[in-house]
């Protein structure tokens, strides 16, 4: 005898307002409100903030920060880290420079070669992690050094400065007041939202991140997923590297050196979990916006640039602290248990 189903079926409304989703919306919402308040505040007190020139510069840098954040976010979804984001970005930048200046490849081809390089370097990280079973932190710590070093050796640490004008021109395009880089970043965001919410691959990535043993026993090809995810992370880092090269109109070996902090800050501010199994694409975008606006605003307010990092640190502490405080109070009220 089977029991009669009581509440097996669901209504769309019930699913939309389920605790977890509401929680995530509130999280992103809080960040959004913070950003709007910040933009409004800065905009009122410093009109030059909203000038086309400033907006263009701001969004051009923002786009790179968003993509760097995405690069880290994808591996965070696995519960992994990728300390080689900057190194891969640098390698991609130098490959671009080499392909354009020395080989003389057409621009699209040069970019493709650079992106492939990034993918391969990321995939190597993934393969090493899968094969050795070692912590991704250790592996990517070593490969970061290895990739940087290899690039230094091959290029003799010399920059490529004579890039075609058409290539550096890519960084000058704008739509309205916004740099067209921003639209590259937003397109990638849409792609990632589609990946994580509307594809088999994204589901497999998050399942692997949340519980790789269970995922493996349920038929998810866990090792392949790890390699693909790291390759994707490498690809995104390479895109950021190419964009920076265009912006600087030269390929410098120092590109990527200071990416480590922003790469973690954007996704973590946005609510992506270090433990894996959950990523927030929109959150990472908002996190990057918060960082860029804060940075830009502080500079415009003539706060010495030296203090900016201090405020970024406080922002991260505040964001995770508030998140923690909310989940504790929510648990006390018995709302959600994460």
């Amino acid at each position, binding site marked *: 005898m089977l029991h009669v189903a009581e509440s097996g079926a669901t209504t769309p409304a019930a699913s939309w307002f389920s605790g977890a989703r509401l929680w995530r919306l509130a999280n992103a919402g809080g960040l959004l409100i913070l950003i709007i308040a910040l933009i409004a505040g800065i905009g009122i007190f410093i009109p030059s903030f909203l000038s086309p020139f400033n907006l263009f510069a701001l969004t051009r840098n923002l786009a790179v920060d968003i993509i760097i954040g995405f690069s880290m976010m994808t591996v965070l979804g696995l519960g992994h880290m990728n300390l080689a984001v900057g190194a891969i970005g640098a390698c991609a930048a130098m490959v671009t420079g080499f392909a354009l200046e020395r080989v003389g490849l057409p621009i699209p081809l040069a970019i493709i070669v650079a992106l492939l390089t990034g993918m391969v370097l990321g995939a190597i990280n993934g393969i090493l992690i899968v094969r050795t079973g*070692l912590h991704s932190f250790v592996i990517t710590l070593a490969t970061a050094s290895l990739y940087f070093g290899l690039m230094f050796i091959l290029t003799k640490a010399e920059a490529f400065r004579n890039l075609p004008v058409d290539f550096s021109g890519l960084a000058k395009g704008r739509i309205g007041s916004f740099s067209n880089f921003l639209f590259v970043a937003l397109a990638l965001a849409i792609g990632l939202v589609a990946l994580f919410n509307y594809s088999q691959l994204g589901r497999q990535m998050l399942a692997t991140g949340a519980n790789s043993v269970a995922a493996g026993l349920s038929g998810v090809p866990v090792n392949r997923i790890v390699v693909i995810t790291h390759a994707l992370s490498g690809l995104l880092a390479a895109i950021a590297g190419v964009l920076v090269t265009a912006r600087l109109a030269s390929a410098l070996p120092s590109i990527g050196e200071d990416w480590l902090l922003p790469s973690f800050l954007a996704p973590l501010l946005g609510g992506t979990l270090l*433990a894996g199994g959950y990523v927030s694409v929109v959150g990472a975008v908002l996190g990057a916006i918060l960082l860029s606006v804060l940075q830009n605003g502080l500079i415009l307010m003539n706060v010495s640039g030296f203090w900016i990092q201090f405020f970024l640190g406080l922002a991260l502490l505040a964001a995770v602290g508030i998140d923690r405080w909310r989940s504790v109070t929510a648990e006390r009220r018995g709302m959600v248990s994460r």
Partner: protein
Amino acid sequence: MKQSLGDRILNIEWLPLLVLAFVGILVLSMISSNFLSSYNLFVILRILSVTSLVALSQMVVIAIGQMNLAVGAIGGLVAILFGALLELYHVSIPLAFLAGLAVGIACGALSGWLIAWTKISGFIITLAMLSVFTGLNYGITKSIPFYNMPQALKAWYDSYVGPVPLILFIPLIAMVAVAVILHHTRAGRQMLAMGGNPAAAELAGISLMRTTIMAHTLSGALAAIAGMVAVARLGTAEPTIGSDWLLASFAAPVIGGAILTGGHVSVIGTMIAVLIVVLLENGLILAGTNPFYIPFFLGALILLTVLFNHWRNSARSSPLLRRGGH
């Protein structure tokens, strides 16, 4: 269960590293006549004195299964405060040292307390603290170093005890102190117990909160000393001190056999690893290679030794994991 003496020696974890270090020294002294010159040895020692403290600072946090990304930031902040006290306020060196140590301890304790209290991952908290401390450092100094360090500091740094340079004692004392703390004090045993199995440690009445704070405090103290030794070494209090410590701080403990998830670190292994890293850099420079090549070889070294440790551990894994032998 009985092991022969030979087996026991072969099982010493850091033995392969020691062999590697000796081979390194041998090779270097053969390819370069300068290597064994007293000047070059002194250079090696100077680098060793700072790097070993940095590595130990990271290692004690790895022991409890966490990471401290703020090691360099604490070192840098303490370095410039130390410099400011000496240059602007003419505080005596010992007093300035104690003040710097206190600041390092406070910074570490703050990180530890935040982790314990918020229960947020140590990685995120120390990432934020890295930013906060670095920001403070640059905000205070506007990136300008304190140049006028007292002569006495430099003199102290260059002095000898008999034929032995004074700074040789810094890594030695730090090594012995950390080893004693980790292996022979209650606090140290509780730290490694927490890293080895937090649930079991808690059931044995160990407070994970207190242990977390202790480990980060100790780490802060070591980072602070590293920062001040760096000031003595450079002769100026540079705000950039500590900005490039991250790689070395993890590389040495990991090469030395530490397990990143906690519960096992090797003090001697870490120290030998520091020596190997320093020898590698020194050797490449003596061989006349471009200093830019160093990261590649460092990365390769980390990867290879980690793979070797991994292979060695899995080859001798506990009989529990290797069934079917009977």
